């Protein structure tokens, strides 16, 4: 089945373009408004400073260079050098000496000082436009503290929020083409500014900060009070958990056979779990990270990036400090996410093939890597049943036995000969010895081909499971760490490290063969006016919900609630991606009905649960034609 978890809010109306959104608690990521460089560096400091060990190089980079995806060409320090009188030496010294507490104090003071600096500029501005620009910048800087301040001190957050409104309103208006100008109200600006700056002085510019086990922007006075503040986890600027674009095509065995997923409740439930952040622990569950976040539609997500956890897009360190501290191996060893296409043929599992069982591998992902609760046997069975339906992309240039068809290019036929050629430099083996064409181009064994440096002298840790070559044309980069960007570079690597002595033409032919074997017919999802990303999500979510037809009669509360919590939140979130925005209320209604099913089940009111479920289905049928 299909799953789309991308919600990109890109709304522009002329010049008032822009976007916003926080991190979502459901499996639909929302695009964030761009961060100001200083605010971004501060949030990265909090995030990276909470990892163990602290990645100091990355933390320094956070201040020196633009964050990943930044629209600003300069990093925070360079920008400050150009346009600010705020002293950065304390921060730079603290980073150089790798003093975590000092970095926190200096960075926090820096942001507060920058806010005050912009507020000074606003009050000194001679024009409304100048004042508004300064206030806007100050407010963007305040965003570095905003959500933590609100969680810790909601009363103050409200007072400050109103002060921003007062301040902006009091800047007057430059009018348009000289008409409609309004003078600034200096007294009102001064009063509003005092509300903001007084709070900053008391909480973000203290003489000294009490040491913090966890770096946050919780105000110092609240921290000193010892109050227990629940902060919702967020990803730092530069993170990217959106789906690939174009979206990979998902090939499911049952769909190809014409079987409706709604008639396969175990698989449909597994499909839902594959998309559910609920099965993981925090922070993944709070951030909406699910299996499909990394494995888009059974393949990979080549844009996934989390600072401190990814060394490059598409890679993630799943046993690092962020997701499950107890599983933190304190090694910086992010791996390139493997595709799950053809999963039932590709065991053993894990890049090093350490799991023979897909059940065991899946449990390890849920419980250890992402800190989730122990899954029930039903959940594991459902997930495995679903994942075993993942097929490779159909490839008209290749037979099921791994032979080229007449649709394959000439170069591929020449490359096939090289692929099957034994090389003395490889102990008389050929590429095909491990990537066996008639066995889905793999041998289900782990080999040390010298692609990884040993962890210590004498270590035997470089053996990796032979990957299939099917459907690989679309999931670059290659090797366990994603160190080779193209199939041509893989050929070059073997040629040079094994001393194969291939000519340029032979390397090109071998590359053509790999590209042909790894190709797929229609590898990406094709959208049109009606088959929109939302429609895809809607069909999928209603299919997930259909398992209630099985779970409600069985009065299976535990699994019903995982489903309703997942699907109701996703439906509501996905509504904002609709092309036909006028139908959003109908989708919100469906989400409410599903929530009500969950509430009724929690109250053990099975009659009400069934009524709400019937209403959900009726609503879905009624609006079906207009949902796109």
């Amino acid at each position, binding site marked *: 089945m299909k799953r789309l978890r991308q919600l990109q809010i890109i709304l522009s109306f002329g010049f008032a373009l822009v976007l916003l959104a926080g991190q979502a608690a459901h499996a639909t990521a929302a695009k964030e408004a761009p961060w100001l460089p200083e605010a971004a560096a501060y949030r990265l400091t909090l995030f990276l400073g909470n990892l163990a060990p602290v990645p100091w190089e990355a933390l320094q980079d956070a201040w020196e260079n633009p964050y990943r995806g930044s629209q600003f060409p300069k990093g925070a320090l360079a920008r400050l050098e150009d346009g600010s009188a705020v002293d950065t030496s304390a921060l730079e010294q603290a980073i150089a000496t790798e003093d975590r507490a000092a970095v926190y104090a200096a960075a926090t003071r820096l942001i507060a000082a920058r806010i005050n600096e912009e507020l000074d500029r606003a009050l000194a501005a001679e024009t409304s436009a100048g004042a508004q*620009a300064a206030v806007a*910048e100050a407010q963007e800087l305040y965003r570095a503290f905003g959500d933590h301040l609100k969680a810790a001190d909601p009363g103050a957050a409200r007072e400050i929020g109103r002060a921003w*409104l*007062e301040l902006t309103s009091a800047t007057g208006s430059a009018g348009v083409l000289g*008409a409609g100008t309004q003078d600034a109200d200096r007294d009102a600006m001064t009063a509003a500014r005092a509300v903001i700056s007084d709070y900053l002085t008391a909480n973000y510019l203290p003489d000294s900060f009490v040491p913090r086990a966890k770096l946050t922007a919780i105000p110092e006075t609240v921290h000193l009070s010892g109050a227990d503040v629940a902060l919702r986890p967020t990803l730092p600027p530069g993170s990217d958990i959106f789906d690939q674009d174009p979206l990979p095509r998902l090939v499911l065995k049952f769909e190809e056979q014409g079987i409706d997923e709604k008639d396969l409740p175990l698989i449909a439930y597994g499909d839902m779990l594959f998309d559910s952040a609920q099965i993981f622990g925090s922070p993944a569950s709070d951030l909406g990270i699910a299996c499909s976040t990394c494995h888009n539609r059974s393949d990979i997500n080549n844009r996934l990036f989390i600072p401190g956890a990814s060394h490059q897009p598409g890679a993630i360190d799943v046993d690092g400090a962020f997701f499950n501290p107890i599983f933190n191996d304190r090694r910086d060893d992010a791996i390139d996410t493997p595709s799950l296409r053809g999963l039932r043929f590709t065991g053993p599992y894990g890049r090093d093939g350490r799991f023979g069982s897909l059940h065991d591998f899946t449990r390890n992902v849920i419980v250890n890597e992402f800190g989730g609760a122990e899954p029930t046997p039903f959940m594991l069975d459902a997930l495995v049943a679903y994942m075993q339906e993942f097929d490779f992309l159909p490839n008209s240039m290749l037979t099921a036995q791994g032979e080229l068809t007449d649709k394959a290019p000439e170069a591929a036929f020449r490359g096939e000969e090289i692929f099957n050629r034994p090389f003395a430099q490889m102990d008389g083996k050929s590429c095909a010895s491990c990537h066996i064409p008639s066995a889905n181009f793999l041998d289900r064994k782990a080999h040390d081909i010298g692609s990884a440096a040993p962890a210590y002298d004498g270590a035997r840790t470089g053996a990796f499971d032979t990957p299939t070559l099917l459907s690989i044309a679309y999931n670059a980069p290659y090797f366990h760490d994603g160190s080779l960007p193209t199939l041509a570079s893989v050929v070059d690597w073997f040629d040079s490290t094994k001393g194969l002595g291939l000519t340029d033409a032979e390397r090109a032919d071998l590359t053509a063969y790999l590209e042909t074997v790894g190709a797929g017919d229609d590898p990406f999802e094709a959208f049109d006016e009606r088959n929109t990303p939302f429609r895809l999500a809607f069909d999928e979510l209603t299919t997930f919900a259909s398992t209630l037809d099985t779970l409600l009669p069985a009065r299976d509360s535990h699994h019903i609630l995982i489903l309703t919590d997942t699907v109701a939140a996703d439906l509501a979130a996905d509504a904002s991606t609709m092309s036909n925005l006028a139908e959003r209320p109908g989708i919100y209604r469906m989400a409410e009905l599903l929530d009500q099913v969950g509430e009724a089940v929690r109250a053990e009111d099975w009659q009400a649960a069934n009524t709400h479920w019937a209403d959900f289905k009726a609503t879905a049928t009624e609006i079906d034609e207009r949902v796109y």
Partner: protein
Amino acid sequence: MKIRRRDFLSLVAACALASTPALAQDQSLKLAFIPQENPDKLLGDIEVITAWLSGEIGVPVEGFVTFDHAAAVEALRNGDADISFMGGLPFVLAEKEIGAVPLLSEVYRGAPTYTGRVFVRKDSGIETLADLKDRDIAFADPISESGYMFPLAEFEKAGLITGPDAAEDFFGRVFFAGGYQQAMQAMAAGLVDAAGASQYADLLLTPEQQAEITWIAESPAIPSHVVIARPGLDAGLSERFTAAMLKLNQPKHQAKLAYLYGPDGYVRADSAAYDGVRAMAHSFGLAN
């Protein structure tokens, strides 16, 4: 963030035009762009789009960023610019002031128009505009069509205020938050009771917030942003520019729209469509 620089930043598209038959050596086209949130990005965008337009039109095309609408109109007036991208309200004022001519209107979600709405939180109990008596409202900006003027006019239509100047008497407080996003966030966060903003401004909220709000009034259609020309621009050149811009509606060129404020496309402008804005400019005392 808003632009801080006051200088004109100019770029010239370097194009190999020598072999273009339609090239008229004494002709060129100068485009004025109004800054959006990131001037650096806009400069890069201008480079791309002017290079493409040069090739399509057959004359050198320059693009530069102006400080604001007034500077763009001044540039049109004195011939420093031939064409400018502009909002509907500044266009009708520029039309009155210098006789600016509308060429193209931006299309979003299938239409060259949009609306302004009054948004509230679903849990506020507010169902009608009258319920906002003595309550606080945030608008985007005092010169925003969909983020102030058109939503406020709905209160006048409902008989709740006699005109723009009477707004303060009806509401508790009227704030100008600085933009759609800020106004919507203030409403969603409960800092104010309502927000006046573009019909699509709710998409600027988080998905959770979007589910928590609704709207209680909607304005008539407001024409979208417009591409205008200075009076006296060579008719042939104007037409070639317009034809080139309309090519951006073709699938193979649509990606370039991202370099032009990101509309879904363009249509030829219908001057009559801006009558509502002209009337609104009078109502708010901007065109007197």
